[in-house]
């Protein structure tokens, strides 16, 4: 790899204050522009890992580096701008009274004002195809629209890496398709945490399996999904009738 990787995690371990240890030495590297799926059973530590990427949780051991910048108190504002996390429930993410204010929140917190701010907001909304909904309150939108706005709130910060937590959950097939189109059109590094294996195959050439707090597999998505023994070992199951090799 010639350029600096977007994300580099080395030997990351973490235990919650109550003593429960969730991560046991995670190693992973994401090159710039890659789209990678992070798979794993419930309780594997996926969410814990995600919360380390922008410094909400601080590593008990090991390091997280974003575009060459170590995650730590010193660069927190910069890190949080570079790592855009889209949380699972868009209602948690869209906390401002209108779509426009919500998308503007991050850039405004970083000091942007006036026409420059308006331009950033308009561009982020256009990228997810929600330009005409700027003045609506979030609770008047459909779930799929809210999820796309949630993506826009993060894109407005021009992140280095986009982290999505279960992006396809609760979406109807059409919304799921629309979101896929949006994600494919972006030129940022994407880390997608998901249980939706066909979605991972559709969008991410590469997949990681996080199991019991470590990366248990790392390779092309098609190969991983086709390895029955590996899949069973980590409690991963394909939907009925779905054969990864047969999808073009």
């Amino acid at each position, binding site marked *: 790899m010639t350029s600096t990787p977007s994300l580099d995690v080395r030997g990351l371990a973490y235990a919650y204050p109550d003593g429960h240890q969730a991560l046991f030495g995670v190693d992973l590297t994401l090159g710039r522009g890659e789209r990678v799926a992070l798979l794993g059973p419930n309780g594997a530590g996926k969410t814990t890992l995600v*919360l380390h990427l*922008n410094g*909400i949780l601080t590593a008990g051991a090991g390091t997280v580096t974003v575009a060459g910048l170590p995650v730590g108190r010193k660069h927190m*504002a910069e890190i*949080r*701008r570079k*790592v*855009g*996390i889209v*949380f699972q*429930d868009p*209602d*948690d*993410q869209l*906390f*401002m*009274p*209108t779509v426009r*204010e919500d998308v*503007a*929140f*991050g850039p*405004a*917190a*970083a000091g942007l004002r006036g026409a420059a*701010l308006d331009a950033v907001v308009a561009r982020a909304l256009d990228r997810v195809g929600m330009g005409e909904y700027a003045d609506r*309150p*979030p*609770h008047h939108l459909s779930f799929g629209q809210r999820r796309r706005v949630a993506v826009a*709130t*993060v894109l407005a*910060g021009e992140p280095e890496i986009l982290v999505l937590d279960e992006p396809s959950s609760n979406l109807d097939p059409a919304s799921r398709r629309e979101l896929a189109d949006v994600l494919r059109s972006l030129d940022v590094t994407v880390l997608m945490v998901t249980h939706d294996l066909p979605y991972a195959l559709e969008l991410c050439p590469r997949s990681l399996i996080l199991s019991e707090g470590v990366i248990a597999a790392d390779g092309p998505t098609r190969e991983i999904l086709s390895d029955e023994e590996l899949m069973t070992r980590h409690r991963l199951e394909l939907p009925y009738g779905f054969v990864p090799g047969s999808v073009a």
Partner: protein
Amino acid sequence: MGAGHAHRLYRRGDSPVHRLPPHTKLAAVLGFVLVVVTTPREAVWAFALYAALLAGVAARARVPAGFVLRRLAIEIPFVAFAVLMPFVVPGESTTVLGVSLSVPGLWGAWNVLAKGTLGVAASVLLAATTELRDLVLGLQRLGLPSLLVQIASFMIRYGDVITDEMRRMSVARRSRGFEARGVRHWGVLAKSAGALFIRSYERGERVHLAMVSRGYTGTMPLLDERPATRAQWAGALALPLAALPLCLFALLG
């Protein structure tokens, strides 16, 4: 803030009153109500003129009279209190239709009814012509502390979400054949309230995470700072300024 309330009180429209900046309207309503409250109750004519002023505002805002009158229902508990006054207040009494009523009590009832009604009507007009969000922005521009503004914004944003959760829990209870009928069922309802609190609190924590992830450090970026023009201020303050001389006249007269 059930969806119902928020949306029933606001009437979408494009009148000159709708277009006024929210903080000028808030200041105008507050000024008007202050003038009304200060007016001596004996000046019955002044109250009639105040009502006429409000009717003028309603006409400009194209808010139908019936709408305002229906919202006055919010006052009913105190109307009842006012109705009692002529019977309980001591003092000189008079006889109306064979019933003995106290004169100071009648004046007291009139005082509460007139001022209370004008106050509610003014507030209803404000709420009918201003969107929820703008009202909060208006409070912010009038100097409400930022933390209170934030709390109020979150309350508005999540009022619907939480009332929806409450409604879903109620549907879930009823689909399992539970119908709250009396004191015996308080336990179940309180458990729901407890669960609702836990959900609300946990959502608060998640929202905080999402905010921090986008660079929140304890203060909200102040957006949308369009100061009101002099003409807008003049338009809004026309209401209290028209009422003020009436009040002064009543005080002196």
